[in-house]
C-alpha cells in the first residue's frame, strides 16, 4: 500500500509541476467569476442563476474530463517514454500497484479540483442574489424553482394494446390494411396514433391525469405542474388558454381548485398549486380543459407533463450533482490508464477522446443505430449495440440538466450510476489495463 501512495503522490506532483493541470486550473479560476458577472440569462434572477450554473458546471465538467484524460495518459506514457519507469518498476512494487497508484493520484487530483471549483461555483451562485436587487415575485420564483431540489412525477404511458388490436382486426376485416406494410409496422403506427390521441384534447375536451403516493415534505409547500403544449394549428398570438383543476375527484362533488391560464406554446411552463390539495392517502388528480377560446387541438408531448415537488435542499442536490461528475472522471481516468498501457501518448489521447465524445452523445448514437438496426437486425444487435452499451451514457446524467430545472438527483440514481459506471465499466477497463500491463515488456519501445 505504501508504494501505491508513493506513486499517487508523485503523480499529483507531476500533474501540478509539469503545468498540465496548472493550465486548466488557471483557466477555470479566471473564467468562473467572469461568467458569474457576465451571464444574465433572460434577465430575471432565476434565469441568471440558471444560465450561470448551467454554463459553469458544463465548462468545469468538460475541462476536468479533458484534464483527467490527459493526465492519466501522460503520467504513464511519459514514464515509459522517458524511461523513469525503469527505476520505479525495478523497486519492490508490483505492476498493478504502479497502475493503481497512478489511477489513485489522478482521482485524488480530480477530487481536489472538483471540490475547489464546485465550491467556487456554489459560492458565486449562493451570493449572486445578494448583489442584485430583485422583486418579491422574482425572489419567490428563484427560491421555488431554483434553490431547491424537486422530485418529479410523470404520468405512466397509457396501455393501448387492446385498442390497437381491436382496430387492427376491424381494418383487416374491412380490407383497409395498406398492402405494402407488414403487420408489425401497422401495429406500431397504430400504437403511436392511439397514444397521441390519449395526450390530445380537442376544443372543449378534458384530459385527466391521476397520481398515487405523492409525498410532500411539508403540506404548506407548493406543488409545481410543469407542462408544454403542442398544437395542431398555431394560434395567432402563439398562446393557449386553459383551465386546470387540481385536487381529489374520487368524491362528489370533487374537491378541486381551479386555475385559469394563458401560456405560450412549445415552451415549458410551471403552475404552482398548494400542496394541501393532495388527498391524505397521497392521491392527486389533475385535469386540463382546452377552453373554447382556443381554436386548436392541444397536444402534450410524451414528456409534456410532470408534477414537481420539493424533496431536498439545493445544497444537497448540488453535492450529488458534483458526485455525478466525479463518477465520470473516475471512469475517464480508468479509460486513460487503459489506453496508456498499450498506446503512445498522442494515439492514446485520440483513442480516449473518441470514446469520450461518443459517450457524450451515446443517447443519440443508440437512438439512431436502433432506428437503422431495425433493418440490420441481429448483426447490429450482436456487434455495434453491445459496444455502445458498454460506453457510459454521459448525456443521460448531464449535471446542468438536473440543477437548471432544480430537479432532484435521488441517491438511488447516484448509486445506479456509481454501480454501472465505476463498479462495472471502469472496473472492467482497469482489469484489462492490469492484464495488458502485466504481460507487456516495459523496456520495449512501443508505437
Amino acid at each position, binding site marked *: 500500500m505504501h508504494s501505491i501512495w508513493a506513486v499517487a503522490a508523485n503523480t499529483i506532483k507531476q500533474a501540478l509541476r509539469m503545468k498540465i493541470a496548472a493550465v486548466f486550473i488557471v483557466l477555470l479560476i479566471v473564467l468562473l467569476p467572469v461568467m458569474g458577472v457576465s451571464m444574465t440569462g433572460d434577465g430575471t434572477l432565476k434565469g441568471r442563476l440558471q444560465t450561470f450554473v448551467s454554463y459553469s458546471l458544463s465548462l468545469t465538467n468538460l475541462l476536468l474530463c479533458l484534464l483527467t484524460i490527459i493526465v492519466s495518459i501522460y503520467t504513464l506514457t511519459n514514464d515509459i517514454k522517458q524511461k523513469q519507469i525503469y527505476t520505479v518498476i*525495478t523497486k519492490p*512494487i508490483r505492476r498493478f500497484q504502479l497502475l493503481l497508484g497512478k489511477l489513485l493520484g489522478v482521482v485524488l487530483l480530480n477530487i481536489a479540483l472538483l471540490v475547489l471549483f464546485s465550491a467556487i461555483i456554489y459560492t458565486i451562485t449562493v451570493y449572486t442574489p445578494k448583489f442584485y436587487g430583485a422583486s418579491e415575485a422574482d425572489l419567490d420564483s428563484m427560491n421555488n424553482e431554483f434553490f431547491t431540489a424537486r422530485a418529479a412525477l410523470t404520468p405512466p404511458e397509457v396501455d393501448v394494446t387492446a385498442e390497437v388490436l381491436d382496430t387492427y382486426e376491424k381494418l383487416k376485416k374491412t380490407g383497409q390494411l395498406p398492402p405494402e406494410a407488414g403487420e408489425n409496422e401497422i401495429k406500431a403506427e397504430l400504437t403511436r396514433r392511439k397514444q397521441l390521441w390519449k395526450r390530445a384534447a380537442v376544443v372543449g375536451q378534458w384530459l385527466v391525469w391521476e397520481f398515487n403516493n405523492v409525498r410532500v415534505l411539508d403540506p404548506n409547500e407548493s406543488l409545481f405542474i410543469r407542462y408544454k403544449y403542442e398544437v395542431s394549428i398555431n394560434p395567432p398570438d402563439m398562446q393557449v388558454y386553459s383551465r386546470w383543476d387540481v385536487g381529489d375527484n374520487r368524491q362528489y362533488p370533487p374537491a378541486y381548485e381551479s386555475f385559469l391560464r394563458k401560456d405560450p406554446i412549445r415552451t415549458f411552463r410551471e403552475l404552482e398549486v398548494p400542496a394541501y390539495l393532495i388527498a391524505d392517502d397521497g392521491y392527486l388528480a389533475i385535469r386540463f380543459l382546452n377552453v373554447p377560446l382556443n381554436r386548436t387541438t392541444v397536444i402534450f408531448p410524451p414528456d409534456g407533463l410532470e408534477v414537481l415537488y420539493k424533496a431536498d435542499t439545493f445544497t444537497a442536490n448540488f453535492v450529488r450533482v458534483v458526485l455525478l461528475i466525479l463518477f465520470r472522471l473516475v471512469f475517464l481516468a480508468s479509460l486513460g490508464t487503459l489506453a496508456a498501457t498499450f498506446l503512445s501518448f498522442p494515439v492514446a489521447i485520440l483513442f480516449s477522446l473518441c470514446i469520450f465524445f461518443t459517450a457524450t452523445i451515446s443517447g443519440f448514437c443508440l437512438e439512431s443505430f436502433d432506428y437503422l438496426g431495425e433493418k440490420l437486425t441481429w448483426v447490429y444487435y450482436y456487434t455495434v449495440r453491445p459496444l455502445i452499451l458498454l460506453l457510459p451514457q454521459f448525456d443521460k446524467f448531464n449535471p446542468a440538466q438536473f440543477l437548471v430545472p432544480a430537479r432532484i438527483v435521488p441517491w438511488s440514481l447516484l448509486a445506479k450510476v456509481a454501480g454501472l459506471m465505476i463498479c462495472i465499466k471502469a472496473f472492467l477497463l482497469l482489469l484489462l489495463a492490469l492484464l495488458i500491463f502485466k504481460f507487456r515488456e*516495459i523496456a520495449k519501445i512501443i508505437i
Partner: protein
Amino acid sequence: MEHAVETFSLTKIFSDWWGRNKVYAVDDLNLQVRGNEIFGLLGPNGSGKTTTIKLLLGLLYPSKGKAVVLGGDGADPKISARIGFLPEESYLYRYLNARETLDFYGRLFGLPANVRTMRIEALLDMVGLKAVANRPVGTFSKGMARRIGLAQALINDPDLLILDEPTTGLDPIGTRQIKDLILELAKRGKTILLCSHLLADVEDVCDRIAILYGGKIHAEGQVRDLLLQTNKKQITTGAISDTTIERIKRLIKDEHADCVVTSPMDKLETFFIKAVADAQQQARPTSGAVSTTEISAFLAAEASQKNILDKLVSASVSRETPSEPTATEQVVGVDTSEPESDEQLLRKLTKPAEPARPGPVPPNRKITTEPVKPKAHEQDEDKKSILDQLIRQMPDSTSPKDNTEQTDKNQ
C-alpha cells in the same frame, strides 16, 4: 557458493511487427556472478550488455532460458527489495528535487520515515549534492544526475548492485569516487554487477569479467589471470643511479632477456586528482568541486558505522590495519564546514584501493597517506545516534552475514 546472478541459456530475440528480421540481442547466455564479487560485463556497443541487465530485472522477458537473481525472479518484490539498479542513464523525474527523488524511491521500498530521512541525508552527503538538494533534478548536469541516480540505487542498502555504465558523464574525480565506492561496497559484502565499455574502470575494480559480443560470452575469468603477461617481469624501484642500472642490465643480459628502463608515468587520473587537490588547498572558488570531497568522507563514515555495528554484534577483531580505524572514525563527524580537513580527505581519496583485495591489479601510485589524529570528544554523540538509527534500520540478518563474509575474505 550460491550465485548472486545466474542465467541458464538466456536468449532474447527482437523481431519486427511481422515477427521477421530476428535479432539475437542475447544468445544462449550462461552467466554466473558469485556472491560478494565485482563482476564486469564488457562489450562494444550493442553487444547485449544492457539487454542482459533488463532481462535480469524483468524489464524484458526472455525469449528462451531463465535468469535467477539472488535465488529468485528479479521482478519479485521480495528480490527487488535487495537490488539496487542504476540504468544506463539516470532516468529521473525532472520536476522532483534531489531530496524528493530519494524520498520517493525510499517510499517505494517502504522505509520508515526516520530511516528514510537519515539515509537520504547520508546519501546526499555522499554524492555531494547536499548543497543543491532542493533544486529540481531537471536542472542538473549529466554528472549530477548520475550521482543522484547512484544515490537512488543505494537507498535500500542493496545486497546486489547492478550498475549500467556507472561512470558516464562523471568527471575523473567522480569516476574515482564511484570506483572507490564500488570497492568499499564489495568489502562490505555486496555483490556488484558492473556493465561498461570503459575498460580502465573495469580493470581497476572488477574481480572477474565477461566479454560479450553479439549476445554471447567470448571471454570470461579473473581479471588478473586474463591480463597477466607471464612471459614478462616488471621491477619498480626508487630513484637509482645510472651505474646501478647498467649493472642490472648486464645481469639481465646474462639471462638472454631484453630490458627497457624508463621512469614510470603517473596515470592522468592520478595527476588530475592531484591538481584539483592542489587547487582546493589554495581555496580557489568553484561551483561544484568542493562537494566532491564528501564522497569519500561519507564512504568512510559508512564503513565506520559498520565497524561499530560489527564490534557490537560479533565482538570480532577489527579487520582494518591499526591506523585505518582511527582514520575512518575521524571522518564520521567531519563537518564540511571545516576547511582544514579537506586536504586530509583528499589525500585519503587518492589513496590506492584496499590492497588486501586479491582481484584488481593495484595501480602504480605512490601517494602516501598519513593517519589522521582522532577527534574523539565531539564524535561520541554522533556515533551514538548513528548507531541507534542503524540498529533500528537493520532488522534483517544482513549485518552478521556481511560480517562473516568480510572476515572470511580478510583471512
